[in-house]
């Protein structure tokens, strides 16, 4: 099956403006038409039409924000509406490179907006600077290769003219991976893979599909779905992140319990490096041929080359999907239940446990209920849990579940999981709560922009940790954040919360959110970074990993050596030195 013509662009001398850049915010998360705002009545509203929550009123959000952060609707910190082109440094072009590039016919641009758009990911400091209209070092040129061969040509030219290349996929990095190194004096070229977005073939006999690496998650799923298949790889960023990005960061998807993480899904990878193209010679499902070269590629974070094509496993679309949720009297019981589920290896496609703060946050995001009946039911449920079952509303927490597969098996599986939950005091709390939990995953990123309009800055970060340390790490990291904020003069106690988002045989993935009101602080971003740094120190001291799936980038580079040991560092360096001796892929990530 070759491509989908509606998404293809002709090769031209002009920039083939990718559809995404036009419909996305330049200084915030996601689509331009979608955002949270407080309407004239002072109620929170989610605009647009793209999500289930779109167009709805969220009555409790205002109060929650005021109560949690001490925000005030009168005190706003709005973003600069548009990019000031003069704030962008004129490009440093390598004329010889540009000349030869022209002759290849690969489209490129040095328009300020194009360059700024590809100069950042979504770290707090990156977005904060954009909102203030501040632009640092940005790529000097953007190129849009249309296929693998285009990339080969670009890399050859870059080597020939000593130009620095930074691969760009969906731009959803949260590790400063897309930031241009300050010290880079060469011309920096952003290699935007968005035009390489075709499914090249589907092999139904082996259940594999071969794609170009620029394809974005939601397009990949949609296109495969049309043929009755899916990859099942659904990272929270899947609306915007690309296949190549997943490979380059060792991504993880929500439903990895059924489908696996990216390293389990990838069968074959093609990457263009300064030394040439690296790939395996066959598609055997497993090989014993020395260290797996895929593992040099996965997690290389754009330091070795551009991933151009990937063969991935696919599965028939699930026959049946069912959401669910369980309420636990406290977080400890919830974690114990997840641990038991993992021990029995019966985790559903997804199982996530939110702590009490996040549970309350989820509640604040409930849209206005339209019917008296639903609101009556809600009230009844609440009464049953807190009064009848005696759950303390300040302790209880909730797990959201997603089951997938054959209907009969799903129901059976569901029963098994609920039975285990019951042993830990868990009460089934309905499909709606579960479904809303997952929907919020996509919506929550928009909320940060709203917060930033009202002096609230925040970020999420993740780790993986052995089971016996899950409770300790959650408690200690949350407490550390609160203490650091207090020590640094934050007036209002920060929002510090976590959830367990993945279970493994030997441990779990834990996600932390923290946010605070920065009104009155002179250098909030710097302070924020210090707190984030302290939180990461705390994670490492509690046996957590440097990252479960976000990657290292430049944000967490400082801890790389202690993470993989001196020798490990040397191994990685020697690969880099061989593959890219002139540091053409000079984004400075990882090492």
């Amino acid at each position: 099956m070759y491509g989908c013509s509606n998404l293809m662009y002709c090769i031209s001398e002009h920039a083939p403006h990718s559809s995404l850049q036009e419909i996305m915010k330049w200084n915030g998360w996601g689509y331009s038409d979608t955002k949270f705002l407080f309407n004239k009545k002072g109620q929170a509203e989610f605009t647009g039409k793209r999500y289930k929550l779109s167009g709805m009123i969220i009555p409790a959000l205002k109060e929650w924000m005021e109560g949690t952060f001490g925000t005030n609707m009168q005190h706003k910190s709005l973003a600069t509406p548009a990019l000031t082109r003069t704030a962008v440094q004129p490009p440093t072009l390598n004329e010889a490179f540009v000349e030869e590039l022209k002759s290849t016919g690969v489209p490129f641009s040095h328009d300020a907006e194009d360059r700024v758009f590809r100069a950042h990911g979504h770290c707090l400091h990156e977005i904060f600077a954009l909102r203030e209209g501040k632009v640092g070092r940005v790529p000097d040129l953007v190129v849009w290769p249309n296929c693998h061969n285009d990339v080969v040509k670009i890399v050859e030219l870059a080597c020939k003219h000593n130009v620095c290349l930074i691969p760009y996929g969906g731009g959803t990095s949260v590790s400063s991976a897309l930031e241009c190194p300050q010290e880079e004096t060469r011309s920096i070229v952003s290699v935007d893979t968005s035009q390489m977005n075709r499914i090249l073939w589907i092999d139904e006999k082996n259940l594999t599909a071969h794609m170009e690496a620029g394809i974005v998650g939601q397009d990949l799923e949609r296109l495969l779905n049309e043929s009755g298949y899916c990859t099942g790889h659904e990272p929270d960023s899947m609306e915007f992140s690309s296949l190549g990005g997943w490979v380059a960061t060792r991504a993880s998807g929500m439903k990895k319990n059924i489908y696996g993480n990216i390293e389990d899904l990838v069968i074959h990878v093609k990457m263009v490096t300064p030394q040439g193209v690296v790939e395996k010679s066959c598609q055997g499902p497993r090989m014993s041929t020395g260290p797996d070269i895929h593992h040099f590629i996965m997690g290389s974070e754009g330091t070795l080359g551009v991933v151009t094509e990937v063969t991935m496993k696919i599965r028939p679309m699930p026959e049946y999907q069912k959401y669910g949720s369980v309420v636990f009297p406290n977080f400890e019981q919830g974690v114990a239940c997840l641990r038991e589920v993992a021990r029995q290896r019966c985790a559903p496609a997804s199982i996530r446990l939110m702590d009490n703060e996040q549970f309350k946050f989820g509640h604040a995001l409930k849209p206005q209920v339209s019917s008296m009946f639903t609101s009556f039911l809600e009230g009844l449920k609440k009464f049953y849990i807190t009064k009848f079952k005696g759950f303390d509303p300040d302790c209880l927490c909730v797990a959201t579940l997603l089951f997938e597969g054959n209907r009969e098996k799903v129901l059976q599986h569901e029963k098994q999981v609920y039975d285990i939950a019951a042993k830990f005091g868990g009460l089934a709390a309905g499909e709606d709560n579960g479904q809303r939990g997952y929907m919020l995953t996509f919506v929550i990123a928009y909320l940060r922009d709203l917060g930033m309009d009202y002096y609230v800055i925040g970020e999420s970060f993740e780790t993986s940790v052995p089971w016996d340390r899950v409770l300790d790490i959650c408690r200690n990291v949350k407490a550390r954040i609160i203490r650091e904020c207090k020590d640094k003069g934050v007036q209002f106690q920060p929002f510090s919360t976590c959830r367990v988002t993945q279970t493994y045989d030997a441990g779990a993935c834990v996600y932390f959110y923290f946010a605070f009101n920065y009104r009155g602080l002179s250098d909030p971003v710097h302070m924020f970074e210090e707190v984030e740094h302290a939180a990461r120190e705390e994670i490492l001291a509690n046996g957590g990993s440097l990252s479960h799936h976000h990657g290292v980038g430049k944000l967490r580079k400082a801890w790389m050596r202690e993470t993989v040991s001196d020798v490990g560092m040397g191994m990685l360096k020697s690969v880099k030195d061989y593959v890219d001796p002139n540091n053409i892929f000079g984004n400075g990530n990882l090492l």
Partner: protein
Amino acid sequence: MASSNAYAQRDPMLKKRDDFEDILEERRNSSDLRYALKCYTPALYKGVAPCKSSMLKSMVLQSDQLHYVIQQVSKETGRQTDNVQEEVSAILDEMAHSLQLSTVRFFAFTLSKIFKSLFKSIRVNEEGIQRLQQAIQDHPVVLLPSHRSYMDFLLMSYLLYTYDLTLPVIAAGMDFMGMKFVGEMFRMSGAFFIRRSFGGNKLYWAVFSEYVKTMLKNGFAPVEFFLEGTRSRTSKSLIPKLGLLNIVMDPFLKGEVFDVHVVPVSISYERILEETLYARELLGIPKPKESTSGLFKARKVLSEDYGSIHVYFGQPVSVRSLAEGRVNRCQFNLVPRHIPGRPDEDIHSFVNDSAYKLVRAQEDNMVLKPWVLLASLLLQKQAVGQEQGTALDELTAQAVWLRDLSRQYGAFLHWPDQMTPSEVVSSSLSLHRGLVRTCEGKVQLALEHEEKLLSQAVIVLSCASYRNQALHVFLRPALLASAIHAASSNQKQEVFNSFSFLRNMFSNEFILCPGATVQDFEEACYLLVKTGTLQVTQKEVLVNERGHRTLAFLVSMLDPFLQGYQVVCRFLCEEATETLTEKQFIPAIRKFIIKHLLAGRLRYAEVLSSDLQKNSLAAFLRLGAVEKIKGYQISNVSPCLGGKLPTQKAVVARL
């Protein structure tokens, strides 16, 4: 080296300390019974409900840690796990406290009566209590009181009960268990009992540490123990013991709690109940075994006046901040945390340094009474052989001088400023009339000439125990003064070397933090320069004209110890030519010292203190002048001794 700027910020004069409130005042004005039956509702750690002792036991028994060790012991010895489990259960029964409010109320009642008859007042810094209350609600708390008397732990629980704070559980030595009834009473008031030595017993250690950690981690109650391990018979702080401190820091280091707060508590007695008892013990007059009947015999103490007690609850110390930048907690990532392991070298040194810091914090907040200064002065005078005593007004003038000096050194002196100095002196003397004699306006120690040497020594040692309370204030300047005295020139380097040698030699005797020689030297220089005693230039240390008096006083302060170490050294050179067992050492050295004292070759009867003798032996052992063979024999390594101690010889020569 010494820059006054660096020290200006921590000028001891500027130390801020809280005020005290007398808790006995209310007891004298209201019903003790009502007080004992009052409503007691302490604020709890994060609202955790207190845990019944039976529940606590089962938590300990079911812990992963014990489970692991039981399996291991069973594998090693071939015993059935049930059998090992039973042993664990028995250890736990022997150890566990069974805190009961009724018993606490009983103690609240009886202690009120006893305290009122013994003491003028019991003064507590209430701000410290408030800090403690906050700490208990936020973090697991460890209480570390100083230990000068049996009274200490009862007093602590009494205070916490009075202020409506969670009652602590207290680590007590097994010897209390000898007193059948009292032992059980203590158990019911929150004491748990530990065997004095259980070095090799893996199982015992595991049960014990898990028991303490379980209480601490869950925040059921503050854990209280004595960092010094035992009561100090000399009123000097003892070198801290690390076992329990290791245990209570472990949950933080392994991430099981966010933080642990450690609260040093300084309890100072104007008159110690065990005063002469201690002196006798140090002189080798055997101590009566702790027994209930013995306790009743001791009730004659009830009729005497013991002045006042000051209890200072220090600033809670966060173990997290102590460890920050010192300990890499990642080292615990690779082995499951329930598997017991020996702490690494860096953990050991961290715990050791923390222990010293905490003991110094105790010392710092120890309240000194005027009598402590008088005792220091009188002892010095006695040693230079003033037969007829010192005129009262002269003594008063000297005491005032010493008061001002000690304040400049940062002493926490409780000198009643509303009284005239002579009133202060005479009331101090009258409280301690067993130790001093005033005759025709002249004051001296109550030593009768016809009395035997040992009886005289009892008085001297009792007195010394009061002087010792102030030692920590003068220690560093005194080391510097002695170093100047001993050094062959005014060269700063020379003085520093001499200081460093003395400091090293005395580090079993006094609380001198390991590795802090330079800081101590700078601190001493700073204090002596500030008070106009010295001038310290880049190269030289010069004594000011008006500094001689201070220097002489400081040198005399340390002299008994210096002489003592020298005598022990001489004994080892002259008498102990053959190897000597550890048991023989004390009697032999005692004989040797008595001989020297009677011959008038030695001025200080306090050298008879077995504490000093043991410390000096330990120091010589550490310095390699003496060595241990087969664990219990002492062999004298003479060449080493001769070679290693030239500076000391020089000191002696200059004296």
